[in-house]
């Protein structure tokens, strides 16, 4: 059974999903920090 490619696919998919989610968290963090800075400037 040539199953090794399925094993690698599952591991890669797992880390791809985690990386994508962490990427969205980083993007949201930077957007909120930028907004906070702008609000600070406005005062």
């Amino acid at each position: 059974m040539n199953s090794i490619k399925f094993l690698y696919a599952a591991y890669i998919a797992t880390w791809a999903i985690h990386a994508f989610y962490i990427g969205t968290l980083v993007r949201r963090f930077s957007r909120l920090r930028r907004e906070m800075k702008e609000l600070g400037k406005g005062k």
Partner: protein
Amino acid sequence: MKRLFPIFSAITAALLAYALYQALVVAPTDALQGDVYRIIYYHVPSAWTAFLLFFINFIASIQYLASAKESTQKAAKWVVIVIGAVGVIACFLPQVQHLLPTGMRPSAVATTVLAIPAFYFFVGKFFPGQRLDVLAVTSAEVGVVFCTIVLVTGPIWARPVWGIWWAPGDIRLTSTLVLWLIYVSYLVLRRFSNSAQTQMLAAALAVFGALDVPLVYFSIWFFRTQHPQPVIGGGGSMDPRMLHVLVISWMAFLCFAFLVCWSRFRLELLHREVEEAHAMESLVGAGAAAKASIPLNRSPK
């Protein structure tokens, strides 16, 4: 706390690398499935982590709903204590024991039942007020990520072993998909609803959603499924070396989930801070506009 984050991140990264090494190199090859069985070292810990996160979401949602009134809060405390006490006693009654699935130890069920009051009081103590809601949304979102991994890695394992990607009608698979859909709808509700009742509605939805978790977990005990029968905790016969790697892998994923939840929790707090600042700014703006308009609106005496 900010200093702890990089230290904990480094420990988690090391643990994940060690778990990967154990899963790919140290764990013995399965005699029937070959190497593809090693997917369980990611699939099963992800499922357990998702269940744990949905359980935290359930507890935080109950706490949030109960915190609306002081009388409800007191009543909920007593209900949780009674559930814990009655549940533990019931697990050791012979009449209840024969209802448990074959191979499932009453002590394991009693420990799980005891986790309900333990988590309830822990969450109530360390996450007061709005932080309960922040914890609920955090655990639901990270839980959905782990549940997605379960739904992706499962079919990747099934294709070479079963010959099909998905077994339509299989209760374990279907109930997991339903669980995922419930929590996705929970997140969609939170994301797009602007009503003042959103948090309450989401908490109520989360309580119903959590009812699916025991169905997913126990489905392989109570129903005939295509999904493999339990290999641990239910009279299974997993090789101790494989079990050892599975536990290491779960510990690594738990640390990783904790780290991600920590970041998501901070993000949600920052998000609410920004929203408050925006609201204050618009209030100040509206106040200034109103002040400026007062003399114009006054009729001359």
